[in-house]
């Protein structure tokens, strides 16, 4: 039995604490006007940034499940 400290706790910590940094970054670039959501290409970048966060979250979740059950 693999302890939870080797599976889900690191995952939660990574995307929880890392997610806080990510969220602060997204808020700052929006509030400062560095990303201007009125521009089409900036809206595209905004979606890419959010996609990347979930892309890596899914990646790590998938490989954790694969490691545990296959």
């Amino acid at each position: 039995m693999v302890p939870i400290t080797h599976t889900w706790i690191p995952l939660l910590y990574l995307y929880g604490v890392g997610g806080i940094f990510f969220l602060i970054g997204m808020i700052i670039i929006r509030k400062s006007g560095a990303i201007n959501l009125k521009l089409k290409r900036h809206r595209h970048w905004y979606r890419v940034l959010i996609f990347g966060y979930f892309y890596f979250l899914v990646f790590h979740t998938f490989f954790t499940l694969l490691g545990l059950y296959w």
Partner: protein
Amino acid sequence: METSAQNIQHTFHNIGSSIDIVIIGVYFIFIMLFGSYFGKYNRSTKDFFFGGRRFTWWLIAFSIVATGVGSHSFIKYSAKGFQYGFSSTMTYINDWFFLPFFLFGWLPIIVYTRIQSIPEYFERRFSPSARFLATILLLLYMIGYIGIGFLTLGKAAMPLLPESFNMLGLTIHPTLMGMIIIIAVITGIYITFGGQTAVIFTDLLQGFVLLFAGFLLFFLGIAYLHPFGGLWHLLPTTWKLPLADFNKPPDFNFVGIFWQDGVAGSVGFLFMNMGLIMRFMATKSVDEGRKAATFNILIMLPLSAIVVGNAGWIGKAISIVQPNIIPPNTSPDQIFDVVAHVVSSPGVFGFIMAALTAALMSTVDTLINATAAIYINDIHRPLKQFFKIKEKTKKDTDKKELRAARYSSAIITGLGVLSVLAFKNFPTVYEAHGYFHSTLTPPLVVAIFLGIFWKRFTPAAVITTFLGGVALMILGAQHPAVLIHPFDHGIAMNPEHPYTYIRALYNLVVLSVVAVVVTYLDGQFTSIVKLIKSKSNHKQIIYSVTALAVILFIMISLNIGSLLLLLIANLILVVLVAIASTYFIEYDPVAQTEGLTVWSINRAKEVFKGRKVNEREGEKVLVDWKLKKGEDGVINFSKKDMEKMAAEPGDLVYISDKRAWLGGLKSIHSVFGEPHDEDGIVYISEEDEKNGIFIKGKKLIAEKEM
């Protein structure tokens, strides 16, 4: 193959054959000739350092692979892959969290303000004294990085050598330090030809070769293990998990590595790595830089994680089924060489080792050159200015600077070798690099980060962070059981190498606290300084304050006194440095933040363009080109083409050869001039033709930049 058993770890010697040595030699010569060919594309110093800001994202994204992977990764990640499995990949897959800060903060700032070095940013945002301290910290960081590069090269080369050999009647026993010194001499000879364009193309080739060599090794390993049941099924479950255990063991735990690599390392990689930053600045626009960085993190880094770590995973599987071939106690730092030798045939092994060592060497060489550039730009020239030294002609200046650059390169190489002493006693390169990152990265990370994203951050605060904050870091290193323990998340302290990774969290916290508190107390420090300045002996007072601060810093560094006493001394040091900095530094919070923080990027854009930015979104247009007489600094399109591009006279334009596979090599930046009526034609000057290396009859593609 000769092997020698040590008490704990099994080390290998004399692996490889003469054909492998020949292949390594031929590969090195080929890479040098390849780099020198692209030197011809440099027509100015701007080209030399930044490649002329012309390349497309994909070319830069692939050239970054060698920069990110080349230096030390094969050895260190294979070592951890061998010891702990797939979790060796976690440091390659944790950089996304800081990408918003980089893509829409630091990247546009460095491009639009035309900053050429990180210390230069500190001078413009804060003060010359902040630049001086940033330069020292950056030099320490770069020299440490060179040291890690040398250590890795030494460790990669050692298994190829015999345990001893005879020369001129003497029996010579190769040692790691001896090997490193020889490598340092060879590195000095292995010159990076032709500047940034050559580096980009050499790295592009090496990036492809490294990926190819890494995947070749992976597939050879999988094929080797197939008869035994396959790699996946041979590995224990914990080896298959993508993240390490939360807080154990001390030499490889998730939480420590998250703070050391995911936070300090990621910010360091994106914000402090001058080699990488210069590469992003070589892209044709900020948006292309964004694409290169995003593609690198989303696609290239996960692939690189497999490339650099797979030798360790394969080594672990072989050690289970064939412990006589790869003993389970094989020295982790040798596992890459050993696995490459076991699974590949003679010649192929030579190619894999050549790809590794050539990339390592060019990375170290690039670092030495970049460090010498920092010395010339941020120490040599400011000192000459300070002492009012001026040569008679520009030629004399160039000659003296070139000589200074050569001497400094030699000294930096020597210091790099010396810095290996600080790292060589760590069990693996991975831990040495982790310690390096958690110790040398945080001061600059905190200072750059707050400088960019917090416009209230003051010069007094940044200098106090560099001195008072670093003093707290030194105290933490001296008393880890007391000061770092509260941050350790349950990681056991290894007395030999206490808190290798999690010390990054302690360092980041103390530095941030000093930075924030001093910024918030700016009003109080200003009042104290006003009071001092009102006294007739204000100079004596402030010099006494400075002298006392120096004494306290030395006292803390030498660990003189009890911890309580030293903590009080540190508190006083923080106050004194803040007062002295407020006294000496003249700071204009409006002028010195304009265009230099994320809050005024649009202003930076306007300064870059020289007029109001045109944000209307247009299309690209395909045109033929014709030469015009004279040089007026603009290029002329038809009215219709300009409408398509949503451009107006005075806007910035990027125009390149239509052939996308050239990656922007044949291109220029210019300004839209007054339009004409010939649709599909652009008029350019002879100088534009030369700079763009355009070919007659080949179509160009144009787009408005801003």
